[in-house]
């Protein structure tokens, strides 16, 4: 989008009408007011797009291979490690980073903190896309993806934790779509739809809290099925769901900090002053939310060790790895956040957020792969599994960018709202 950054005078398309008073067509809105040729030119001028094209050209054939020849052709088909990178990263990693939607929804709509409004939509979108692509990862991983609705309509197994995950992710996805729709309605100019959703916003927000609590927790509880397999330090039969829920709070908030930083840096042409000016203040506000979740998380992690009397494991190599994880993935970002808050320095908070996001991913992959079957061998994912994961994640980034370019997420719609 160099075109806009170089000669930036005003934001492209923030209203239904051109400066001269005539209406933008939908096609023009999609092309950001450029002609098709211009759009293509700027598209290929951007080196990021070349990387994306290369990733897709390698990844998509492998995804096709997976659907035509089965999972065996792209994974090690391990019976000892039934869940690989698709779930370890894609489901268990993406979902906590998408907790942002319900957190800021609650802040703004439920507690009426309108000062967080400029970042609310970004958080909602981050939530929606995170979940959506977690489901995409699931569709890659499931043996029979076309049976995805079975647990809901064909054969119900209500005692299973995954049953809850299925129901909650499905309903929460619809809730999140409803929450993001107002931006879409503003953009296409259908205000009636927006009004309908405004009327339901409290219900949607509360539904979001319930569903998030439960399935962030449920993802953790899934591991309580394997008490003998996951290393005891990473598993607490009683508290696992709280560990996952609590860490999703700072995971989701940190992810919003990371994404908003990226937007500020690379998408400044799309942000309005409202967003840019308040971003530092909001970042520190989110950081404050993070530190409280983090200190709680550390406390309940150790409470779990005490509850299961696992202190002795801390003396082993696994124990060192565990402490290493806690220090690097939670303690360090927490201290950085505290520093940032005390000094009023948003840049430090942004560094902390990167650590926290990577830390969450690391923790989930540890639970699902590294510390799973800890007394057995380690499973190294097949390179094609890695390639598919990168491809789907790239699709996530591209979709994210596509929407941010257009919908009034980072800026306020100037037209009728």
């Amino acid at each position, binding site marked *: 989008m160099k075109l806009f950054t170089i000669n930036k005078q005003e934001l492209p398309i923030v209203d239904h009408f051109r400066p001269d008073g005539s209406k933008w067509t939908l096609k023009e809105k999609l092309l950001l007011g450029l002609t098709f040729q211009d759009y293509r030119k700027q598209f290929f001028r951007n080196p990021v797009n070349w990387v994306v094209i290369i990733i897709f050209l390698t990844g998509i054939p492998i995804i096709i291979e997976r659907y035509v020849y089965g999972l065996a052709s792209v994974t090690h088909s391990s019976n000892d490690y039934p869940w690989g990178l698709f779930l370890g990263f894609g489901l268990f990693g993406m979902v906590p980073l998408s907790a942002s939607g319900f957190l800021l929804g609650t802040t703004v709509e439920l507690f009426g903190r309108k000062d967080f409004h400029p970042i609310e939509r970004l958080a909602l979108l981050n939530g929606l896309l995170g979940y959506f692509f977690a489901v995409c990862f699931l569709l890659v991983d499931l043996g029979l993806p076309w049976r995805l609705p079975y647990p809901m309509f064909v054969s*119900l197994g*209500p*005692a299973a934790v995954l049953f809850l995950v299925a129901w909650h992710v499905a309903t929460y996805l619809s809730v999140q779509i409803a929450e993001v729709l107002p931006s879409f309605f503003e953009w296409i100019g259908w205000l009636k739809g927006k009004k309908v959703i405004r*009327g339901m*916003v*409290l*219900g949607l927000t509360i539904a979001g809290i319930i569903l998030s609590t439960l399935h962030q927790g449920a993802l953790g509880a899934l591991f309580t099925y394997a008490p003998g397999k996951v290393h005891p330090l990473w598993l607490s039969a009683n508290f696992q769901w709280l560990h996952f829920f609590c860490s999703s709070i700072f995971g989701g908030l940190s992810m919003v900090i990371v994404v908003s930083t990226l937007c500020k840096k690379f998408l400044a042409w799309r942000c309005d002053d409202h967003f840019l000016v308040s971003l530092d203040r909001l970042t520190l506000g989110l950081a404050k939310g993070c530190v409280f979740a983090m200190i709680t998380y550390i406390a309940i992690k150790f409470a779990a060790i005490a509850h299961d009397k696992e202190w002795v494991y801390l003396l082993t190599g696994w124990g060192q790895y565990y402490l290493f994880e806690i220090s690097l993935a939670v303690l360090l970002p927490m201290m950085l956040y505290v520093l940032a808050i005390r000094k009023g320095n948003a840049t430090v908070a942004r560094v902390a957020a990167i650590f926290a996001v990577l830390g969450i991913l690391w923790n989930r992959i540890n639970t699902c792969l590294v510390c799973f079957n800890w007394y057995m061998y380690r499973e190294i994912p097949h390179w094609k599994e890695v390639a598919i994961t990168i491809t789907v994640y790239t699709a996530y980034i591209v979709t994210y960018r596509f929407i941010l370019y257009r919908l009034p997420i980072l800026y306020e719609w100037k037209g009728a709202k």
Partner: protein
Amino acid sequence: MKYEINHQRDWISFILMIQISIAVGMMLLGFIFQAEWAKNFMIGVGMIKPMHNQVDYYTYIKGIEYLLCVYYFMVFPVFYIFVNKKKQ
């Protein structure tokens, strides 16, 4: 947030509430008086069934629990709107 609701919606919610109370009342009466239909109903939906293992028992109790939750989700919003309705 709009708590005010128009008359028609008011009536619908009112009727819903009444229906719900009737249903709950009937269940209570059934329990208290051990009515034949209550017995048949409970056997019919498997509320009384010999269970041989814990896993099947959980499938069953969780099913009923979640049904109750879904039922509650229908009741609560109506209840909330009804309570918060402002007098015109």
